[in-house]
């Protein structure tokens, strides 16, 4: 039997093939071995050597790497002694040679098998919605604020972050922050803390956070360390210390203020009569003794210290490191222009998300299975039933394809939208199928009528979705988007093709 395909069916086939390409990439990438670099530490040797986010490491020391587990094994074996070793990393088009005691400061993951990106509520990560407290922001205010937060997160060392400003029906501006993967413990502070840093001697401000007063902040090496950990009563505390460099203006201020101070001599040494008090958002963080040698001197180099405490030494160390990083970040980026309020904060565990994905898949498959059984029982026509199912499947593929092309993150609302679309799609195909089985007038005429009904249903569904695009700070945008993509693809591609397929079957 020779079947001649009409152009509408060809369009469907082409759309499905293109969508499959969009979802899976080229067949080559599907079989690609190695691990994907998802982040590289800034200013590290390896980043200077040219390793970038998005590259794929295929070999280590000539050994082929076929996955994340393999990579971790190899790395652990190489760096189990505390000695410098040579590592040769091979990517597609470069080779990087390193000598180090520690594994390269990069984060890698499995190469994703598809281009489908899932939302944070599925893949894990965190998202926050922040708003200025007591002030209505303009759109440019919101953009400025976004830049400051962006800078702060980058300086803190969070790489995979997406920040957007959003507005809703009532014209309120929000900043949405999305971080994939592991969430930093103190994310809430990091984004909402105003971070007004002031170093005072008595009541006089010596310097404040931000680049005007602070030219640079040491972040690694001997000048930024966690010095010591001690046990005290029931808890542990660890001290950190790092060096900052003041601008000339700030240094002069420092000299002027310290010049007026007296010198107190104690057994521990001689210090000035007043301390350097460090305030963060008007709270005292630390008070530093000022050595007598600094009196009246124009010094640009200042040592900042503080501590982290916890029940165990390990946690105290971790806390101290976080505190230090936080303080460094604020000193570099300065304070936020407004007091912020975190109005929504979700942190989703990646492991919980994984189970989710499988269950959703199961839900979709079981629904589709039941529907096919029902359709077959109702029509008792194998060809039509199969055509209906294949068309619905191709619709899912097209939605996923378009979602991959526009890099839309499929979150739960988006998936609910896809399920809804498939429901609408099957309904409309039933209309076509039933019209084709009527006996009045010509088949062509009847199918044309089916299309008037479908178009009517299409427009009502689309207009019902449009308000959702803006409502609720865009949290349900995904639902509107996948539904609109799905039913539009349906009306333009799959339904016309299905009509032709049914015509072929019926003729």
């Amino acid at each position, binding site marked *: 039997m020779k079947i001649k395909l009409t152009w509408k069916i060809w369009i469907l086939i082409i759309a499905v093939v293109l969508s499959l390409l969009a979802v899976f990439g080229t067949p080559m990438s599907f079989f690609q071995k190695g691990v994907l670099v998802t982040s590289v530490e800034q200013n590290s040797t390896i980043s200077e050597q040219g390793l970038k986010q998005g590259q794929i490491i295929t070999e280590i020391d000539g050994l082929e790497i076929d996955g994340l587990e393999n990579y971790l094994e190899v790395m652990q074996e190489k760096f189990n002694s505390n000695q410098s070793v040579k590592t040769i990393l091979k990517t597609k088009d470069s080779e990087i040679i390193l000598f180090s005691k520690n594994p390269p400061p990069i984060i890698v993951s499995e190469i994703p098998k598809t281009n489908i990106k899932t939302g944070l509520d599925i893949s894990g990560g965190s998202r926050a*919605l922040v*708003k200025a407290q007591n002030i209505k922001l303009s759109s440019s205010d919101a953009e400025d604020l976004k830049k400051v937060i962006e800078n702060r997160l980058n300086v803190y060392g969070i790489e995979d972050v997406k920040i957007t400003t959003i507005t*809703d*029906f*009532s014209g309120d501006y929000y900043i949405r922050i999305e971080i994939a993967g592991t969430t930093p413990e103190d994310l809430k502070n990091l984004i909402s803390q105003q971070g007004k840093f002031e170093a005072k001697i008595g009541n006089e401000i010596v310097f404040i956070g931000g680049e005007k007063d602070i030219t640079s902040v040491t972040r690694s090496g001997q000048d930024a360390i966690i010095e010591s950990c001690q046990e005290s009563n029931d808890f542990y505390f660890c001290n950190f210390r790092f060096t900052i460099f003041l601008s000339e203006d700030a240094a002069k201020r420092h000299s002027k203020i310290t010049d007026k101070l007296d010198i107190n001599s104690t057994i521990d040494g001689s210090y000035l009569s007043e301390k350097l008090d460090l305030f963060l958002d008007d709270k005292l963080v630390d008070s530093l003794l000022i050595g007598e040698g600094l009196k009246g001197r124009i010094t640009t180099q200042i040592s900042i210290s503080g501590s982290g405490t916890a029940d165990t030494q390990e946690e105290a160390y971790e806390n101290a490191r976080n505190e230090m990083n936080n303080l460094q970040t604020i000193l570099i980026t300065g304070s936020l222009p407004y007091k912020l*309020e975190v109005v*929504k904060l*979700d*942190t*989703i*565990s*990646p*492991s*919980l998300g994984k*189970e*989710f994905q499988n*269950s*959703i898949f199961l*839900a*979709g498959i*079981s*629904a*589709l299975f*039941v*529907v096919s059984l*029902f359709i077959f029982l*109702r029509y008792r026509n194998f060809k039509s039933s199969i055509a209906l199912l294949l068309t619905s499947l191709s619709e899912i593929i097209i939605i996923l394809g378009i979602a991959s092309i526009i890099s839309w993150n499929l979150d*739960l609302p988006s998936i*609910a939208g896809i*399920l*809804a679309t498939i*429901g*609408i799609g*099957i*309904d*409309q195909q*039933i*209309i076509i199928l*039933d019209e084709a089985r*009527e006996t*009045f007038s010509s088949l062509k005429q009847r199918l044309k*009528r089916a299309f*008037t*009904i479908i178009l*009517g*249903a299409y*427009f*009502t*569904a689309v*207009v*019902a*979705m449009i*308000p959702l695009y*803006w*409502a*609720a*700070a865009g949290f*349900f945008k995904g*639902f509107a988007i996948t*539904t609109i993509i799905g039913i539009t693809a349906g009306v333009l591609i799959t339904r016309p093709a299905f009509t032709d397929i049914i015509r072929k079957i019926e003729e």
Partner: protein
Amino acid sequence: MTEEKNFKKKLESFHDKYYKLLLLIPIAILVFSFIYMFVFYSNNGDFIYKDFSLTGGTSITISGQIDAVKLEEALSKKLDEINTREIYDLVTREQTALIIQTKTETEEAKEILEGYLGYKLNNKNSSFEFIGSDLSENFYKQLLIAILFAFGFMAIVVFIIFRTFVPSLAVIISAFADIFMTLTLVNIFGIKMSSAGIVAFLMLVGYSVDTDILLTNRILKRYEGSLNQRIFGAFKTGITMTLTSLLALVFALIVVSSFSIILTQIFTILVIGLGFDIFNTWITNVSILKWYVKSKGKE
């Protein structure tokens, strides 16, 4: 075959005789719904029971097997308006996680839970969702506005498609009845609605008019066969559509109820809504249309 024909004939004459009276059923249900909702609103000051996503609060998902009843008993005084739900593996029926929803703020709730469980909650063993009360209030208002707009837009499109007053109104009335009856039943069941649940109502706006459009189209825009034949033809197609959707939804509902509160709620509302849709399309809408066509003598 003759039996089937006989039955069809009987059904036809029954319907010809009583289709106006049949309208009393939806009217009675609507009146009941209005009274129920009026009382509901005066008691609760709102149209629905809200969950944490609309009142503000925290939802915490903790992996592992944790006894929901014991936890609720122990913490009901400490955590404001606590609500729990177990998540389980669909095959083994073993609990995999517990969801705890409360009006209490995240940090505080976390501490209380850590105290109860005796271990720290972190990124690996738990998920947190927090929404401030102002924002959730805001979300609620906006989603209501979105539904009103969606309904209004839908009504306009229906008028544009049919360009006749009574039939268009019939479609809109039955869509409204779907939504309103669903809302009433959801409240009778005492379901605490989330923001996603409201979105389900929005879906209902789109879903419920499908069969009404099919029906109106078949009756007004074509002349083959008698009025009753056209109605019956539309019914056969329409009921297949709705039953297919219902089947798919019920099966998906069984699966998703094991792991997602959000999807469970969306699907539950849709199942109720589609159930009412069968009723409102094939009784409410059909009766109004039949009345309209007969009075115009367009049979």
